[in-house]
């Protein structure tokens, strides 16, 4: 399994063509208290850069972009009762949705952890 990062502060764990997507710790710290997550329905298809998911904080609603194209296979329904998990555990228990990748070559444009950490350090 390999973890990749986007410039929009999503992460994706990829194993073969299966991916798990969430937002980074930096993203949750910028958003502040998260009060609701609008999760995508299983079976829906998305293109890389689409926003299948919305994270609501006290301040604002923010799009979560899909790092890759594919079909949503499931979502983290536990966030319905506990959206604050995205604040407390953004890069594990606060994952958002699972996706079956339609084109693994899209991963080539994403960052690894070292590159992402350097990117955030510049912000």
């Amino acid at each position, binding site marked *: 399994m390999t973890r990749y990062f986007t410039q929009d502060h999503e992460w994706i764990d990829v194993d073969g063509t299966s991916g798990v997507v969430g937002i980074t710790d930096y993203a949750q710290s910028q958003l502040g*208290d998260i009060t609701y997550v609008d999760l995508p329905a299983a079976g829906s298809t998305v293109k890389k850069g689409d926003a299948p998911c919305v994270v609501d904080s006290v301040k604002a609603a923010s799009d979560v972009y899909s790092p890759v194209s594919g079909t949503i296979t499931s979502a983290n329904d536990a966030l319905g009762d506990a959206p604050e998990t995205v604040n407390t555990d953004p890069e594990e228990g606060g994952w958002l949705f699972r996706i079956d990748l339609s084109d693994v070559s899209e991963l080539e444009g994403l960052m690894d952890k070292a590159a992402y950490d350097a990117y955030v350090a510049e912000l």
Partner: protein
Amino acid sequence: MLPLDAWHRARGGRMVEFAGYWMPVQYEGIIAEHTWTRESAGLFDVSHMGQLFISGEGVEAALEAVLPIDLATLKPYGPRYSLLLDENGGVLDDLMVTRWNSGFYLVVNGATKWDDIGHLREHLPDEVTINHLEDSALLALQGPKAFAALERVVTGEYPLAALTFMKGGQFKIDGIDAWISRSGYTGEDGFEISIPAADAERVADLICAQPEVKPIGLGARDSLRLEAGLPLYGHDLSPDTSPIEAGLLFGINKRRRTEGGFPGANRIMREIAEGTARKWVGLVLEGRQAAREGATVHLGADQVGVVTSGGFSPSRGEPIAMAYIASANAAPGTKLEIEVRGKRLAAEVVSTPFVPHRYFRGA
């Protein structure tokens, strides 16, 4: 730059640009700061707001010509809410007016203060002087423990306890002159404190050294005022809204409602008599997804309104909103829908405030 800019940064405030200034949106987090204010006491820096002193020969008649206020009933040192209206009765700003010994002290919104000064200068006679108190900072201490914390650091000719809601007076904090009124923008008991800008850090440090007090950012200021059902100029009020639609009849003093003689009086008096086509009301949403400014409100196929402020209510644990709604559909209990990102969210009209006010009106 505002006088407490460095003070906020040193305390970990996350700074954002607002009304042309850098101000703290939060310190430890909006929900924690919101809850702290409701349970203890929060210190807000509102030095971006405009503080004006208006004086001179004929100032009373001149002010009554631009504001729908009855100054004959305005006793010294008690702030009163009023409205700056345009010729059509649209709201240019909402403000507080206090009679001081030799004139009137006005507190106006930060984003509108320069326009307000221009408007007042244009409409007040030359004998009336507008003094912009730019060397004064303004703090608000709000919450059920605000009195206990402030009383410890205040001295004056009479005790702080003599102030009830919407009363004010001159006090000293650590020897510094402070104009203090028992008023605010959270629905809680609390105080607004005007001090020299040069002493703002010392006063803020002293108040925050009290165990009941933490500094609070703009984020919680907005969620607290929304729960209190209080309008925010530029969002809930604008030149396109009338104060009668907004339910601010109390901002048009009784004598003025019959006598008129203020900007927009024709429309305002007609609306008082005949009602308005829409009303500013509260909505509680089902579920947890919030509706924000600009979201449209629907009854079946018809659009019946638009949201002007909305967000998640930390105190109630559910999303709330304020909206202008067609008067026929604006009664509490009416079931409506709000469109958010292409989805219809169920909502119900409720009476406001969303969280009861806890002003101190006397023992």
